[in-house]
């Protein structure tokens, strides 16, 4: 026996174990985070490089700058602060870049806090020498590190592309600052809710609201934009007389949110949220009697949240479209530009068509999310007790798919109807616009179904890779966002189902591509279901 020298008695601090947990988080995210960081690093530098080719001189830049004063483009991407290459790059990419790093931060922080807690893994790590605040700190440190990497790579990439180092640094810091703030916001959300899904939903809602506030602020009431973290990023004005003090606002907000998260974490019990547990019904309601009603019970909250979001989204952008008078259509370059963007008959229609295109991608995110619930239920082990009853696999899967596919149609209809109503109220034709825009929005549905089909096919045939459905959605978004600008070859663009959708309103409605998309979605779904019927469940 050897004599053990007892370590000097010391009180382990509330941060004890943070380093170990951070290492664990980095180990778990060793693929995920580099992918996020890589994409975030490529976007600004790639845009700058492409714009350098597209707009070789001041004259070209000034020409396009005139186009960009169009209110609909200002609402979507923000204002162009100066007719320079750097400012143009900022205009194009900063809003998307901030959304990207915000999502990265939210997912990272929630994954290493509430997800682990909900799964019961905190009990294991928490029983070691880990302080009360160690998990939250480790998650925030990990997210902060990822954002720092984005800042460095963005600044270097832009500077190497030939833009001014000061502006490059400003754009990078605007991005990273917003990412850090959303990490802190996710930290708060993770303390509030008991489920990781709800925490992510809450933080993403804040992100969506700040996009809307920014859009509304840039389109009209400027002060609204000052309420939005996304607005702050743009108002730092990289390459256009940087206002560095705006970074202070972001930092202060991040500190406040961080302090709130720590205060909440210090008060609550492990596993608990802020709201006390309420007892539920001791008996199931009569309707809860089959796989379909179970799917309804499990999916309804997600769908309800999305419906509320889409109503707000449609209403805001519909009324923004009302502010775009057709009077502006004197400048031919604007009409040319917008024709290329998709529309043909007037600015408002072009704007609405562009917005509906974005909405299609957004709603496809719901379609993927609702579809992947299949895999979520399976890997959580909740499929097993269902399949031990007479309920068949296919019926169970169809219950969830009904929500994924039907919900997609409902969401597009809601977005179209609210946009139509809001736009119609400004033009004095609410009924007509409601019908017209609902129809225009519904045209996007089959393209979103294709992505749900990709999810189902992966679930049935390659269940371990179902998450690739998100990559497919990301690729579609990327093609829509930067595809044309970055000169991605056209066959790649043809891979996105959204490329085939007629740009309504304002273009003729062609039914053939829509029918084809329905067929593709049906084939993918059928392939997935066939695979699922044949494979082992896990």
């Amino acid at each position, binding site marked *: 026996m050897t004599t053990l020298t007892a370590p000097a008695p010391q009180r382990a601090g509330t941060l004890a174990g943070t380093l170990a947990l951070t290492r664990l988080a980095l180990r778990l995210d060793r693929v995920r985070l580099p992918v996020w960081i890589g994409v975030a690093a490529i976007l600004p530098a790639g845009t700058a490089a492409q714009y350098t080719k597209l707009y070789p001189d001041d004259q070209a830049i000034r020409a396009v700058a005139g186009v960009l004063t169009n209110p609909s483009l200002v609402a979507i991407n923000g204002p162009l602060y100066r007719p320079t290459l750097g400012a143009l790059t900022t205009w194009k990419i900063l809003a998307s870049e901030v959304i990207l790093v915000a999502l990265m931060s939210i997912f990272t922080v929630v994954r290493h806090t509430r997800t682990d807690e909900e799964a019961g893994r905190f009990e294991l790590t928490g029983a070691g020498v880990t302080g009360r605040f160690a998990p939250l700190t480790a998650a925030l440190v990990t997210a902060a590190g990822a954002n720092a990497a984005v800042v460095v790579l963005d600044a270097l990439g832009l500077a190497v592309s030939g833009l001014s180092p000061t502006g490059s640094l400003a754009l990078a810091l605007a991005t990273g600052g917003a990412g850090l703030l959303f990490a802190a916001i996710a930290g708060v959300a993770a303390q509030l809710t008991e489920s990781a899904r709800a925490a992510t939903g809450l933080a993403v809602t804040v992100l969506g609201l700040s996009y809307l506030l920014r859009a509304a602020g840039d389109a009209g009431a400027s002060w609204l934009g000052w309420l939005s973290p996304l607005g702050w990023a743009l108002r730092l004005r990289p390459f256009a007389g940087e206002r560095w003090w705006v970074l202070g606002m972001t930092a202060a907000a991040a500190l406040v949110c961080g302090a709130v998260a720590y205060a909440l974490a210090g008060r609550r019990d492990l596993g608990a949220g802020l709201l006390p547990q309420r007892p539920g019904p001791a008996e199931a309601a009569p309707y809860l009697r089959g796989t379909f009603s179970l799917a309804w019970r499990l999916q309804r909250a997600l769908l309800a949240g999305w419906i509320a979001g889409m109503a707000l989204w449609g209403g805001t952008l519909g009324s923004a479209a009302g502010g775009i008078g057709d009077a502006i259509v004197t400048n031919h370059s604007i009409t040319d530009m917008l024709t290329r963007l998709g529309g043909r008959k007037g600015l408002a229609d072009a704007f609405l068509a562009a917005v509906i295109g974005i909405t299609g991608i957004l709603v496809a995110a719901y379609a993927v999310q609702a579809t992947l619930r299949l895999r979520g239920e399976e890997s959580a082990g*909740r499929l097993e007790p269902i399949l031990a009853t007479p309920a068949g696999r296919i019926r169970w899967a169809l219950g969830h798919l009904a929500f994924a596919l039907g919900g997609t149609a409902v969401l597009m209809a809601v977005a179209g109807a609210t946009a139509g109503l809001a736009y119609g109220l400004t033009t004095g034709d609410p009924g007509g616009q409601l019908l017209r825009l609902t129809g225009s929005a519904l045209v996007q549905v089959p393209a979103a179904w294709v992505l749900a089909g990709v999810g189902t096919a992966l679930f049935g045939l390659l269940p371990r890779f179902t998450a690739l459905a998100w990559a497919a959605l990301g690729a579609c978004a990327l093609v829509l966002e930067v595809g044309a600008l970055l000169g991605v070859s056209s066959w790649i663009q043809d891979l996105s189902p959204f490329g085939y959708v007629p740009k309504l309103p304002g273009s003729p409605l062609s039914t053939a591509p829509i029918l084809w998309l329905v067929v593709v979605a049906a084939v993918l779904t059928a392939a997935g279901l066939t695979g699922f019927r044949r494979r082992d469940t896990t």
Partner: protein
Amino acid sequence: MNEVISVTGLVKTFGRARALDGLDLTVHTGEVHGFLGPNGAGKSTTIRILLGLLRADSGSALLFGGDPWHDTATLHRRLAYVPGDVTLWPNLTGGEVIDLLGRLRGGIDAKRRATLIERFDLDPAKKCRAYSKGNRQKVALVAALASDAELLILDEPTSGLDPLMEAMFRSCVAEIREDGRTVLLSSHILGEVEALCGRVSIIRAGRTVDTGTLDELRHLARTSIRAELAEPPRGLADLPGVHDTVVEGTRVAFDVDNTSLDVALKHITSFGVRSLTSSPPTLEELFLRHYADGEA
């Protein structure tokens, strides 16, 4: 049909790992059949194949004479299942889950449901995320026991239950046995198996190593003998079926195969027996021997 479950030569591989390697299992109607084996022996894999969740690579598995992969819905009307690792929907209450699973099976007896909830002291109004492991187990148990299924497949159903609840579980299974229904009980708790099971199958590394009634299994096992003799014994260790002989002067201790018990006792009485204790094999020894076989 006298056999509820009839499995022969079942093989299942996961990649390179061979989870089942020619497993046999027969469960007769109306018996409580113990299904035993060390962790990772393939118990849950077998059960999952019987439930049609996994597809066997080769061999045959019959459930009520039907194919568990193809006749899933028909067969599942006649069985209830408690998984080893119960995960439930976090935002549903225990009561809702019990009703849902019961209704999926074609209906639930409200009176039996109420009685079981009371007997297992379960709060059905709690959200599943708030249940402890034992309480989640109770939810799954109540859902299965409240059904009038002909066959109950229970995969380590008492892991996480306190002794009081375990006793309650035993009396529930005893009632089921009296009803003439069939139970396949996978378990590590040997007292439970001894109290409930008529026949047992012991598996190891994906194969059945022993099957039969507990008495039959005991018969094949060894008895430990300790004796004090008048004079030191000679030649004891050389007898067939005698193992681990320790002789200290006139004291002797050895294990003997039950088939050789007669010969061994006759041998030692020739040295004058002053005292003798014999202990029959405990189930633990029986299983430890089977579990550990081949590992040494």
